[in-house]
């Protein structure tokens, strides 16, 4: 479980996140949603420690993460996996080397054991016969899958996904969403996904946090999101023509 209390973050005196308090449950797919510029990525990067926060607390189970130094954070970071918006695969390494990288850095396994684990992870994300390819030779969807494989190679307790289906076609986006949900349940991870894709919200949003202008405006599940009284959330959820039509017909 990850718990955030009274988190504030600003850049050059400009507040980006104000008084965010939220808890993300283990074994569930937690979503942070909101418009572009609402502070989703800053919140996610603050939670993982890529941004230092101005005030507040970030708890990983019983550990106050934001007060730890670099070396103490390392231990928790070994239990984290992250899928970045642009995949962030290492350009100079092949698919196999990318997935093996965390194993090379943090385990004493033999090459054979590591290769077995790499192949298991790649099979889990349905990447077959691509071990020797470079990231530049992969499609957007494949890159995301390889990045997921790399993120789960060390069996992490926490998975973070920043816009996992941005730039993907709707069908591939659904496949990536399903994969994240399946993996979360399979490994009982605490997963936090940043997205503004309503399809993801409806499909995998077991717990949803809605951010607007750096503030938490709403919290609930995908079953509740369509019936909310929050105006800014409704403007976001029913932004496109199809959703507006659906809302009209529901009324």
């Amino acid at each position: 479980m990850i718990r955030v209390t009274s988190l504030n973050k600003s850049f050059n005196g400009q507040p980006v996140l104000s008084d965010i308090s939220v808890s993300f449950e283990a074994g569930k797919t937690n979503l942070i949603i909101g418009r572009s510029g609402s502070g989703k990525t800053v919140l996610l990067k603050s939670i993982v420690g890529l941004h230092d926060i101005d005030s507040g607390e970030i708890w990983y189970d019983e550990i106050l993460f934001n007060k730890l130094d670099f070396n103490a954070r390392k231990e928790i970071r070994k239990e984290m996996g992250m899928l970045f918006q642009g995949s962030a695969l290492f350009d100079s390494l092949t698919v196999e080397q990318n997935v093996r990288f965390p194993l090379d850095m943090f385990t004493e396994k033999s090459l054979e054991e590591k290769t077995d684990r790499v192949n298991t992870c790649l099979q889990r994300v349905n990447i077959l016969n691509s071990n020797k390819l470079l990231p530049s030779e992969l499609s957007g969807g494949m890159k995301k899958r390889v990045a997921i494989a790399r993120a789960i190679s060390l069996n992490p307790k926490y998975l973070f996904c920043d816009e996992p289906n941005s730039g993907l076609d709707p069908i591939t986006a659904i496949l990536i969403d399903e994969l994240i949900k399946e993996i979360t349940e399979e490994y009982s991870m605490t997963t936090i996904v940043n997205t503004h894709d309503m399809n993801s919200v409806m499909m995998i949003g077991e717990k949803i946090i809605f951010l607007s202008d750096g503030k938490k405006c709403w919290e609930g599940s995908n079953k509740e999101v369509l019936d909310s009284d929050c105006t800014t959330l409704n403007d976001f959820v029913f932004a496109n023509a199809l959703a507006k039509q659906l809302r009209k017909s529901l009324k």
Partner: protein
Amino acid sequence: MIKFLELLGGYFILLKKVLSKPEKPGVYYKQTVHEIVFLGLNSVGIITVISFFMGAVITLQTAYNTENPIYPTYLIGLGCRDSILLEFSSTITGLILAGKVGSSIASEIGTMRVTEQIDALEIMGVNSASYLILPKIIATLLFNPFLTLISISVGIVGGWLAGTSAGVVTSEDYIYGIQYAFIPYYVTYAIIKTLVFAFIITTVSAFHGYRVEGGSLEVGQASTKAVVHSSILILLFNVILTQLLLS
């Protein structure tokens, strides 16, 4: 002034991070070997070509500027040798490498920064500064002295070929000149300068790449800054080291 101090402080903070204990020495060793090939061996060609012509021009210019019956012609070889040893091989090679290797390091690390590859390393618990920069420092410190030695040798051969082909010096006089009054310490001096320049090129370029924020435009700007700042520092330390080592 505050900006300069900020930059200097940032540089030393990064150095502290870079020089901390590696997570897994075996992985760093592999990286270092890779960097020796990428930053060192791949620079042999350009250093050879430049040094050859540098030696040739120094010989011809020395010959045309000492065209006087009272100067023995073996002085052409001696002048060429000392110019190459004392200045050209270490400093000019340093400046060339600041352009070639420095821009490559800054753009590589800068691109990794803007594509979140450095964030990915940090998330895994890897000391990204140490993992990316330390192997480059070790590789250049190990290999650049060889580049300087290659440059010295090729420069002297270039001078001999140009001098004898143009008929400004005989082969015997040139060879006598390059052996005449030879001070072995000059080689040590050139190697010391090379080591300092290698450290400057790698760390300054990596620093500029590591602190990139933005996109491709900023990566390009970081690359330019890396070359300019490395070159200026090389020239500054050239003066300081010359005073320290030759006075």
